[in-house]
């Protein structure tokens, strides 16, 4: 049984090391989130500053992902995948939010790789799992639904229409996928709900004549 004992010890040590890195990664993600949350309180024009600060934080996140890859043999990726799933979904969401705030575009896999230093090629030893990426996008639309109401409250009446178009595009993309996975399907339903909510805001503005013709 000595050999087992040894395997056991290696195993524990690895999990401990992974735990250490993901803990810091979670902390970094939370810091980034706190920064990006401020977007709810500022005008769109002032978001640039927030985005700049947000982008900076990705340096640390990139390093942590690099470090994570040194804690275990990469062929065991999916053995430990559960340990960083949650935080990676969160990082995907935050990257997507950042990119949207910066440019109004959808996060591409290339940009995600640029920000985190991790590939999205599913056959790479260490990569970002597709499902985690998609779940991150679901969180994005949820946050954008909140942003839509808040920017109306803050007096910014031109954004809702743009957000609405953006989320409709994401929704269309999702509909193509054959979602077996339960948690993803559930989140897709909530994406649908978010889209309707944003459409509702656009409607509220339209009917009151608060949308400029040129925005349409």
């Amino acid at each position, binding site marked *: 049984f000595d050999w087992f004992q040894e395997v056991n010890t290696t195993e524990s040590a690895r999990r401990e090391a992974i735990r250490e890195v993901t803990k810091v990664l*979670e902390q970094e993600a939370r810091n980034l*989130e*706190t920064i990006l949350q401020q977007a709810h309180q500022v005008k769109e024009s002032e978001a640039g500053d927030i985005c700049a600060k947000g982008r900076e934080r990705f340096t640390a996140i990139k390093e942590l992902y690099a470090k994570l890859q040194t804690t275990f043999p990469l062929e065991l990726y999916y053995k430990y995948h559960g340990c960083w799933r949650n935080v990676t979904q969160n990082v995907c969401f935050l990257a997507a939010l950042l990119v949207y705030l910066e440019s109004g575009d959808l996060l591409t896999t290339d940009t995600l790789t640029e920000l985190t230093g991790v590939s999205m090629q599913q056959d790479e030893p260490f990569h970002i799992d597709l499902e985690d990426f998609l779940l991150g996008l679901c969180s994005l639309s949820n946050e954008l639904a*909140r942003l839509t109401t808040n920017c109306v*409250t803050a007096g910014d009446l031109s954004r809702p229409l743009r957000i609405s178009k953006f989320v409709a595009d994401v929704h269309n993309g999702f509909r193509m996928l054959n979602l077996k996975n339960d948690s993803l399907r559930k989140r897709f339903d909530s994406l649908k709900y978010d889209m309707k909510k944003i459409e509702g805001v656009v409607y509220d503005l339209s009917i009151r004549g608060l949308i400029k013709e040129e925005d349409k």
Partner: protein
Amino acid sequence: KHNNSNKDTNTNNNNTNMCVISSPILKFFSDCETCLTGKQDRHERLVKISRDITVKSKRIIFILQRIQGAEELDQLLAEADEKFGEVRALFTSIARELVGHSPFLYLRAFSPGLQEYIEAQSLAEYLRTKTLVKLEDLQRELTFDIDGTEVSILVDEMDYLQGIADLTGELMRICIGTMGKHDTLPGETCSFTREIYRDLKRFSSINRGLDRKLQVMSNSLRKMEQACYTLVVRGQEIPAGQLGEAVDDE
């Protein structure tokens, strides 16, 4: 039949408290009995006090929920303060029970009451000063002098946060309820909740309990944001050609 070796010992422990207990083992267990029963009884007494605190705290919250315009605030707070006096008396009884015992040992017995009290106290504090009650202030309120001993009903961070999470639920009700009647409260409660939420979000996934509370807060916050949105959207509309009249109306 083959095992009657201990019949003798049986007979004299039938009523344990009355007769002399010979063997040291039985003596030890008899002491245990006293100790365990004491614990159970104290637990029961604390549960009862805690239930009373819960009821009274809930009623304080209902009083404060009656707020509409700014002018009634003082009167409502005065009413609440009177009731807080009664709650304080109940906490004194708890402190009396806890003399010489760890509050954490009995926390389960009285934490529902404690949480409801924190909810009520923080709501009153918010309405009074528009600030979040501090844990140390609560702690000071819950420190008693019992016959010369200082007894603290220690407030756990998690109990405090539970109270704050519940507070945002009540703030949500106030936000919705005073909308269109009170000029500033709806907006203020919404921003206040947003700040608490953003600050606490930094600690998410540290603690599973906290995450659940954040979820509750997030829901309340969204409802408040939605309500503020409705108010603003509606206010934005000034029908063409009736601008003059609308201004008159205000």
